[in-house]
């Protein structure tokens, strides 16, 4: 599997360019540690990674990275049940609604190598004039192997019957 390139990552003007590609790298490591199989999601779909379990359950991952070293916006949690609203481009959410695979957002600190995830597949599509949508990141939904295992179980349960194509 080829490493993510600097190419498919668009840094924000104030953000160092390593942040985006390193975010993807950290996501790949976390997923691989959790026993999942990761590959770059091929165009034209807009997401970063295509992930599967050993028995062939697939989902897509969109990675958003920030730099704590350079003062980027970061989620702050006060307790394990706390939530933080992360602003996500509405176009990503629209695309997530349109595909027939589960889509998960990873928000990663490219410097501290920590991150959190949020499911995008069960959210309502944003309105037309909306440019960003707040996505709720939960403190306990981090990128540890246990938390990612819980994610996979949850996705399996929700997608087993209702939305899988015939």
């Amino acid at each position, binding site marked *: 599997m080829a490493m993510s*390139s600097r190419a498919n990552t668009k840094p924000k003007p104030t953000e160092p360019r390593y942040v985006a590609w390193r975010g993807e790298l950290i996501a*790949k490591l976390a997923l691989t540690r959790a026993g999942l199989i990761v590959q770059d999601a091929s165009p*034209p779909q807009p997401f970063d990674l295509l992930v599967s379990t050993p028995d062939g359950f*697939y989902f897509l991952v969109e990675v958003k990275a920030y730099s704590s070293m350079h003062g980027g916006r970061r989620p702050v949690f006060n307790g394990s049940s706390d939530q933080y609203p992360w602003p996500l481009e509405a176009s990503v959410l629209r*695309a997530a609604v349109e595909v027939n695979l589960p889509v998960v957002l990873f928000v990663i600190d490219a410097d501290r190598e920590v991150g959190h995830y949020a499911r995008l597949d069960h959210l309502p599509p944003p309105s037309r004039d909306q440019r960003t949508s707040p996505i709720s990141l939960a403190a*306990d939904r981090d990128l540890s*192997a*246990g938390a990612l295992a819980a994610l996979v179980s949850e996705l399996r349960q929700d997608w087993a019957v209702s939305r899988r194509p015939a």
Partner: protein
Amino acid sequence: MGPCGRSKTKIKSRRPRRSYHHAVSRPTPATVLRWQATDSIKSGRAGTVAVKSAAANSSAAAMAYLTTGQSGKLGELLASVHLSRPVGGRYRRALFEATSLGGTYPSVDLLVDVLDSNNEPIGFFFAQVKATQTASQGGTRLSLTIEAERFRRLTRLRAPAYLIGVDLVEEQSYILAAIAPAPATVPSIPRDYPLTDDKIRVALYREVVSFWARRPRRRRSEFGNV
């Protein structure tokens, strides 16, 4: 020198709903790692833990399931993350970006770009990665199984080349220069140069930059006229 495809852009426009079970090519058996563990991914959520420390917990438990291919993949990812870890001080950025060659090159696993402050490559080095799940903890050396011929080929390359040993249990990477003449056997490497240490990465950066700085920037070629 660096990864290609810089023009890849994300298309974030509205598009008709599509079936990815048909549109996205599934991984071929060659690209899919063959995991022995069937569905070891169960159980509840963990607390808020850093990716790094979470892995330390999970890796020990998961070690028993890793095949050679899996541990090699994990070793490459760990080495890539350690190499690219941003350094503080006057740099405040990543100094290296590793690209996996995916087993297509006989003696090299990673092509590692050395990055300037604009994230542009200004040099590179080759790295062979060897991962181990059975390293003895706390010793001064990391025991590895290294093919002598493969290592000898690495030492013969005319560009900077290094061996990176990865302790998968401790999640540590150690670097060693591949310099000719290669020893007959390489049973272990010293733990003296951990890639997680900022000073080691800065020293490596300086060494590789200085190697490429000695090369002429403009070279002649009979294929030169555009």
